[in-house]
């Protein structure tokens, strides 16, 4: 998984360290939710000052809110528009408030990505559309989509792959083979 320096630079501009910026990029791109435990797993260290500082920074800068769950662990929700805008993800729906079921699914997806960082994931709807339509020549109308109606009557937009489950292309297989890895996180 490659994270462009331009993105980490943008996040470092908010006062985060390089590792924190890389972690935040993954959260903002794939999940929207994270825990301190996941941050610790990402940086490969034990609980202590680093995780406390990171959590405090996210909340104090109003980039994330935190909610305590049954075992006194906190789940952080990245909601700051500025932060998403900085990495070109201002339109993702992760910023919104979600159900507990949804949050659990996102945490599972993030856990999988953190454990499998050697894969190159499709990071956005545009990347997925480009791969399927332009590279594989698949008609757009057969891709899974959801139609959202706008504020104006009869005005709607189609969004593709709204489930946002992690998806990556296996480079070991030839392009025409279309060996696709699709993931279905399940609680």
């Amino acid at each position, binding site marked *: 998984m490659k994270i462009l320096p331009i993105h980490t630079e943008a996040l470092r501009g908010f006062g985060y360290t390089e590792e924190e910026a890389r972690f935040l990029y993954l959260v903002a791109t794939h999940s929207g939710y994270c*825990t301190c*435990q*996941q941050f610790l797993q990402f940086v490969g260290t034990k609980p202590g000052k680093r995780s406390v500082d990171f959590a405090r920074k996210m909340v104090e800068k109003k980039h994330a809110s935190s909610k305590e*769950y*049954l*075992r006194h*662990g906190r*789940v952080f929700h990245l909601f700051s528009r500025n932060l998403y805008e900085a990495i070109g993800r201002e339109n993702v729906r992760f910023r919104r408030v979600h159900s*507990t079921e949804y949050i*659990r699914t996102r*945490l*599972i*997806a993030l*856990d*999988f990505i953190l*454990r499998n960082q050697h894969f190159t994931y499709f990071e956005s709807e545009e990347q997925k559309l480009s791969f*399927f339509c332009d590279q*594989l020549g*698949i*008609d757009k*109308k*057969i*891709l*899974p989509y959801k139609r959202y109606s706008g504020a104006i009557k009869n005005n709607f937009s189609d969004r593709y792959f709204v*489930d946002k489950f992690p998806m990556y292309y*296996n480079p070991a*297989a030839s392009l*025409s*083979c*279309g*060996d*696709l*890895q*699709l*993931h*279905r*996180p*399940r*609680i």
Partner: protein
Amino acid sequence: MDSFRTHLDAYLNLFTNLQSLNFRYIATRDTNFERAKKVFHGTFQRLWNPDGPSGLLQYFRTRRTWDEKHYGKLSNDDIAFINEGKERFGSQELEKLYRRWCAGEITENTMRSDSLKFRTPSEVSIIFSTVNGQAALFERHPHCAVNMPVKSSEETFFTGDFTPDFSSGSR
């Protein structure tokens, strides 16, 4: 498993346009792995079975009725099925097979056996992964009782007194 079936259905048309597919099922426990495996393979077995409901044979027959302009024999469901089938069975190989079958060059049995060569995706697999998923956060601690048992003799009743003396005395 219902949400898993819904997910597969939503992606099925895309899957049929791929040569091979590796599907990963990620969960915090392995409880549903066997059932998911059955649902996954069952979906593709039904898809690949030319004689099955909504299978290739039914698509060819329905489409031939349409192409021969016997519109009166078709219901709205049939028309929807033809449109769906064009996406699912729209490969060039199957199109050729359909033309040859319509022209009477091949029998249904030949068409049935030939269609198996062109099934897509030709290879599917499902891989199971368990992750932590921070699941413990959402579960009550095993030593923490859900409802504290209260004996009827120990039950206290609200006396209507909010004074500080009452509050400190009852602590």
